[in-house]
């Protein structure tokens, strides 16, 4: 098992900086996912680890050795590409063995034995004689993964390997990849733009934006305690609601009069900021008809604009002052566009972000990861759909 370490790694293409001083440590045997919007530098980072792009600045280590100038073939890494990168004129078996054949001295029989083992593991024994054109998308991807496995590399690199598959197959392959990694325990770096894939596969997830890592953390921590506003909005579907508030000592107040209490102790540490952005996830906002409105500070009146039934939950878009707020509620609730409703923010699950830097300045106490109280609370307070959102 091999560790990878990136220390202030930078990649510049002429006058564009694609990766801007990223520092990451991938533990031996870990499954690390790089996730971010297109153009955030995640693929470039992966390609630098592979050696397909040179490193402009900083240091890159694989297995404790600096590999900045080392040829791709000498890094002992195997990569799975989005478009599978299978050789169209070779059979599936030859595709799987061709690279390993070139990489090192292996006898023909050893190689085909290994290919057969891998094919069995991936359930493609019957396809070995076929050429890629005669394989479906999922089968091709299996062959591509098989090729990487036959190499027995110390690091797997995967560049959006599931993006070309249809939704159903993608979910199936995702599960297979997860169990494959559990079995092999090979250090893996996986690039995706799909946050669900990132959350489900990664031991840890690095959320990237604009060439740097915003936060590197286990999936649930990303969701519960996002380090920046970007992470908060990127992770979670539908996205977290974020709107500007004024900070008044032990509470924050929105223009519409919505007031949410915050822990004064934590806010005191923030050195008297008077304005911030309040972040609340759609499932952490309660919605009720006006005459049913619970009394309390965290409530405000809003108008329903659109409702989206998602089956396991109902997503209600509301207009709160100038903001559009998304609220996730029980699937069979009846709200009509134009209706006036009362929104109640769960103060225990709110976040505050610095308006300038976007950094999180406050997380409500119950966002702490892993407390058993946290679990039961969530089950009570949150609409049934919420749990489904996370693991979709």
């Amino acid at each position: 098992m091999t560790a990878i370490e990136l220390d202030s790694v930078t990649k510049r293409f002429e006058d564009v900086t694609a990766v801007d001083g990223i520092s990451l440590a991938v533990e031996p045997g870990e499954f690390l996912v790089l996730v971010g919007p297109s153009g955030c530098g995640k693929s470039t980072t992966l390609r630098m680890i592979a050696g397909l792009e040179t490193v402009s600045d900083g240091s890159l280590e694989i297995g404790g050795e600096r590999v900045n100038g080392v040829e791709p073939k000498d890094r002992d890494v195997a990569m799975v590409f989005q478009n599978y990168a299978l050789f169209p004129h070779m059979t599936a078996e030859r595709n799987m063995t061709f690279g390993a054949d070139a990489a090192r001295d292996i006898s023909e029989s050893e190689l085909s034995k290994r290919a057969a083992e891998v094919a069995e593991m991936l359930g493609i024994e019957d396809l070995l004689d076929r050429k890629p054109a005669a394989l479906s998308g999922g089968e091709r991807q299996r062959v591509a993964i098989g090729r990487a496995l036959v190499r027995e590399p110390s690091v797997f690199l995967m560049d959006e390997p599931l993006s070309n598959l249809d939704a159903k197959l993608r979910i199936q392959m995702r599960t297979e990849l997860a169990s494959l990694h559990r079995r092999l325990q090979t250090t893996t770096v996986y690039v995706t733009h799909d946050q669900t894939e990132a959350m489900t596969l990664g031991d840890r997830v690095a959320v990237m934006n604009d060439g740097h890592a915003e936060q590197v953390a286990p999936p649930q921590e990303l969701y519960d305690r996002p380090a920046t506003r970007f992470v908060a909005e990127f992770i979670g579907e539908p996205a977290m609601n974020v709107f500007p508030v004024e900070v008044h000592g032990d509470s924050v107040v929105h223009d519409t009069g919505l007031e949410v209490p915050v822990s004064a102790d934590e806010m005191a540490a923030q050195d008297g900021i008077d304005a911030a952005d309040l972040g609340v996830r759609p499932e952490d906002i309660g919605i009720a008809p006006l005459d049913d409105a619970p009394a309390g500070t965290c409530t405000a009146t809003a108008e329903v604009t659109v409702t989206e039934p998602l089956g396991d939950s109902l997503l209600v878009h509301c207009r709160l002052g100038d903001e559009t707020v998304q609220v996730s509620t029980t699937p069979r609730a009846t709200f009509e566009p134009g209706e006036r409703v009362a929104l109640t923010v769960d103060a225990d699950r709110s976040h505050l972000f610095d308006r300038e830097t976007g950094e999180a300045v406050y997380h409500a106490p119950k966002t702490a990861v892993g407390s058993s109280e946290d679990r039961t609370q969530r089950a009570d307070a949150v609409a049934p759909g919420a749990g489904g959102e996370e693991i979709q």
Partner: protein
Amino acid sequence: MAVEDSSITSESATVGLPDTLWVHLSLVVSIVLMGAPLLLALLMSTQSTAQIYDVTNLAPGGYALENYQSALFEYDLARYIVNSFVMSIIVVVGKVSLSLLAALAIVYYDFPYKDAIFAFVLLTLLLPVPVRIVPLFELMADLGWANSMLAITGPYIASATAVFLFRQHFLSIPSSLVETARLDGVGPIEFLVDVLVPMSRGMIAGVSVITFVYAWNQYLWPLIVVSDQQKQVVQVGISYLQSASQAGQTQWGLIMAGSILALSVPLVVLVALHRPLLETFALQQK
């Protein structure tokens, strides 16, 4: 809906017959016009000289065997065809191998002034052999290659067109294939032989056909550089037939038989490889 549609089409087909008739008629006329020289040559190769000079006589004559036999053996066309064939094969193999290597270098290697070098290669298109004939002749004489197979093949081995076609084809191969090979440590020659060549089969066949026909049709350069009639190629061989006359009349039957013989070899190659050839041109249009 579908039923209605089909009834409309069949109706308009019958009503519109005069229109399509004109189209077909003009197509037939142009095909006949284009095919006429070939058909006439084929016809004349069966006639005696007297029959040919009787212009209105368009019936096949009975002299086919005589004409072909005499062209092939009496006038040595068989030897010239073999010479042409050997020359063409050498040119095809040389040109394709060299162009593959050049395209490999231009597409997959990073070296300074890469684009300028490729532009320079393309620039050689402006200087075909006939333009360089005098200095080329001197060069062949200096090298001692004159009057040999080397002289009629050497100058044709390098080809900007083939380099260009292979380069375009290589560029259309997804870069992830190259990157996979790099990660696996596949060497450049191994990559060329095991990946690029099998993936370029259609393009190679297409370039080979074009090159074969082009080499086969060379006339001026062999005429100049080869002085030994035994080593001459078929196109020049046909011109030798012209000097054969019978009672002051050019033996057109003989010449036409020679011409038909000369064009039959590239025709066979063309028919055998027409599919990849069409692919090549389709790719060029991209």
